[in-house]
């Protein structure tokens, strides 16, 4: 939805030496973008927190202590405690695992299904294109969360099914973006050349077309991660994602809602965690788009130098 493709055939056939300098330029452009760097740092911290969560969490996530319930943030409970006296800081930290895992796996599913559909659709055109893209249009026409809820209604709630549901919801986006890029690239001279040399469809797709649609897909992946995490939070909020007592930010937000007057921290901290994570993915996504889009890049570079 964000990538324009006219640029792709510019550098599609560029030699490798220049390719390296382009990668370098991409990295430089991203590093020039303060928001993108901020986003990257936040994501890095999040991944570390998720990885070593049990080591840094001061309390067990299901350590119930009724006498300590609904305490405000303090030195012993940085984010306060919930209605069962569980430490919210520990739960928010461990909750990052769910969000990141669901985000990456769901988007992975969308990628694995969407990109091949987009490739086939764009490359073969005709009836294949019509059928596949009408199917994608149908999925795309349904509001994302509603579709995910419908999928979960069939599969039953749970974290695994939530990943599948979110993956299905985001499949059409990847299919469309891939198809759009493929449509321009398959008309390139080097594709015709490869075909005239007798290359098979699979070979053309793999070595000539796929590498040239990576840029828009990369950008979309980063942005989709943000949406997937938001979708997971929404599903958990509705009780369709992670099952209690395991912590997930959306579910913690839902639990906190009933205690908003006595214990606002129950909702505030998981809410902040969601906002910050989604923002970080968006910053990185925007940075990637700027860096991978040559037209945008020149604007940014000139801005950076000026």
């Amino acid at each position, binding site marked *: 939805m964000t990538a324009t493709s006219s640029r792709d055939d510019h550098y599609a056939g560029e030699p490798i030496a220049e390719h390296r300098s382009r990668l370098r330029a991409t990295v430089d452009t991203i590093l020039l973008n303060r928001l993108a760097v901020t986003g990257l740092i936040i994501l890095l911290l999040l991944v570390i927190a998720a990885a070593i969560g049990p080591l840094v969490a001061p309390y067990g996530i*299901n350590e*119930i202590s009724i006498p300590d319930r609904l305490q405000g943030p303090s030195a012993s409970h940085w984010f306060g405690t919930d209605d*069962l006296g569980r430490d919210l800081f520990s739960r928010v930290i461990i909750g990052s695992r769910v969000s990141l895992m669901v985000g990456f796996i769901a988007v992975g599913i969308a990628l694995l299904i969407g990109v091949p559909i987009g490739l086939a659709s764009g490359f073969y055109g005709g009836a294949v294109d019509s059928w596949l893209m009408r199917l994608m249009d149908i999925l795309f026409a349904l509001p994302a969360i509603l579709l995910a809820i419908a999928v979960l209604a069939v599969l*039953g709630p749970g974290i695994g099914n939530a990943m599948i549901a979110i993956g299905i919801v985001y499949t059409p986006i990847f299919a469309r973006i891939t198809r759009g890029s493929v449509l321009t690239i398959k008309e390139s001279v080097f594709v015709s050349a490869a075909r005239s040399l007798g290359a098979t469809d699979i070979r053309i797709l793999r070595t000539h077309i796929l590498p040239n649609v990576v840029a828009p897909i990369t950008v979309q992946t980063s942005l989709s991660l943000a949406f997937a995490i938001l979708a997971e939070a929404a599903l958990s909020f509705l*009780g369709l994602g992670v099952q209690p*007592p395991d912590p997930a930010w959306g579910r913690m937000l839902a639990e906190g809602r009933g205690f908003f007057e006595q214990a606002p921290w129950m909702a505030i901290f998981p809410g902040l965690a969601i906002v910050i994570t989604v923002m970080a993915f968006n910053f990185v996504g925007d940075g990637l788009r700027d860096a991978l889009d040559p037209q945008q890049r020149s604007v940014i570079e000139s801005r950076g130098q000026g």
Partner: protein
Amino acid sequence: MLFLAFALVASACSGDDGIDVSDAPADDTGDDDTSDDATGDDDSGDSRSGGVLLAAQGAEPDRLDPHLTSAFASFQVLENVYDTLVQPGADLSMEGALAESWEVSADNLTWTFTMRDGVTWHNGRAFTAADVEYSYNRILDPEAGAANAWRFGSVESVSAVDDTTLEIKVSRPTPNLLVSIGAFKGMAIVPREIVEDGTIDTQPVGTGPFKFVSSSPDQGIVLERNDDYWRADEGLPYLDGVTFTQIPDQTVKLTNLQTGEVDWVDTVPPQQLAGLEGDDSLVVMRVPGGDYHYFALNQNRPPFDNVLVRQAIATAINRGEIAEAAQFGAATANQAAIPAGTFWTYDYSPFPAADTDAAAALLDEAGVTDLTIEFLVSSEFPETVTQAEVIAAQLDAIGVAVEIRDVDFGTWLDVQGSGEFDAFMLSWIGNIDPDDFYYAQHHSDGGFNFQGYNNPDVDELLDAARVETDESARKALYEEAATAIIDDASYIYLYNPENINAWGANVQGYVVRGDNAVRFEETWLDG
């Protein structure tokens, strides 16, 4: 009253109906001061009349036909519009309503009721015994689809002998017949004409203290005073009318009460009780009710078919902590079903509380290790999720893992019905007669015995207690049955919550009832 039972039978979608009640927490420490305030202001007769009370309820009544609805929200309204033949008094024993008196034949198989004189329907027609005959036959008629036909399990015929005499013939002695016909407005007497013209769901006509005026999404449900009420000579009802508005969000509902936009609310979130009880502009009243919370293990599925395993779990849990966590102290932990303070109370607690050593020993004896229990709960009854989380932590101490399965209530019912569960947790609400507490749940033929309990001794005791007309003999039979049910951990009882309502300080004469019936008959507004 078993509203939940109706919700269970009726439909998946009516799950909301029970929430407010089962949410309602309570405290045995009580608020004697406030309840005295609420009932004791007898200063002047004039101040007792007038005013329209604005009542806020948490759910939308699904329909207004008392025989067909299962929603507690509907009964909150209908309680004030309809009458039953007999009704529970303040102590929940049955007293006359539309029937003035009754007698039972020597063989206990014929009940004869004498109707009250001078009762008229809200549409002006005189009430007669034929109306009762019509209403009961409608409940009995399978085609009418009434939710309560099972209450008439022993009834063979209902017939109006004349305008003021009604005869009910039963196939076996039925000591709890009065509870069956009077415990709640699901057994209301309705006039034939509104059933036949189909307006019973939209424009109810009853004999109660208030007449139904209208129902609309923006105005709520409007009731006005029935000037010809059969207790009009006592000046009842005092109010000019009652308007019910529906406010699903608990926080908004409470804020509306605090700002005076409504006069009365049907529930209070338990976590806010402490704060509200210090507020002078409000009255919060809580009384022990007949509700109980429990969970049951699937006895058709190993290892829960082993009574030692069930007893181990009943021993390992800390009921006090569960009640405190879910109801913020507004509940009393209980290893039995029936709460303290009633004729049927049976105080029996065989399990050492939260004794992990004893529990582990029982598991050892059963030879069970690495046990994982999947707990079926529903977020539509949020306390079940909270309780499951606490139980998970408690059972962790004896090495039993708990997986919580939180589903919507429709799915919950399906799963319960299909038997595909390890354990389910919910509450039963509004029970009065011990038959309501035990028969359907623990008799091997019981309609709600989803946990698969089968104890021939208990079956025999419950069958015998059903037809025992001597009250103390009947009580003894139920106590024997309850002993076995608790020992066998057919249900693992947790606690009895209390019924809670809150209202503005200007509302007088309202009391929270043990059966959770919402009656505004004797309520008035100050100033």
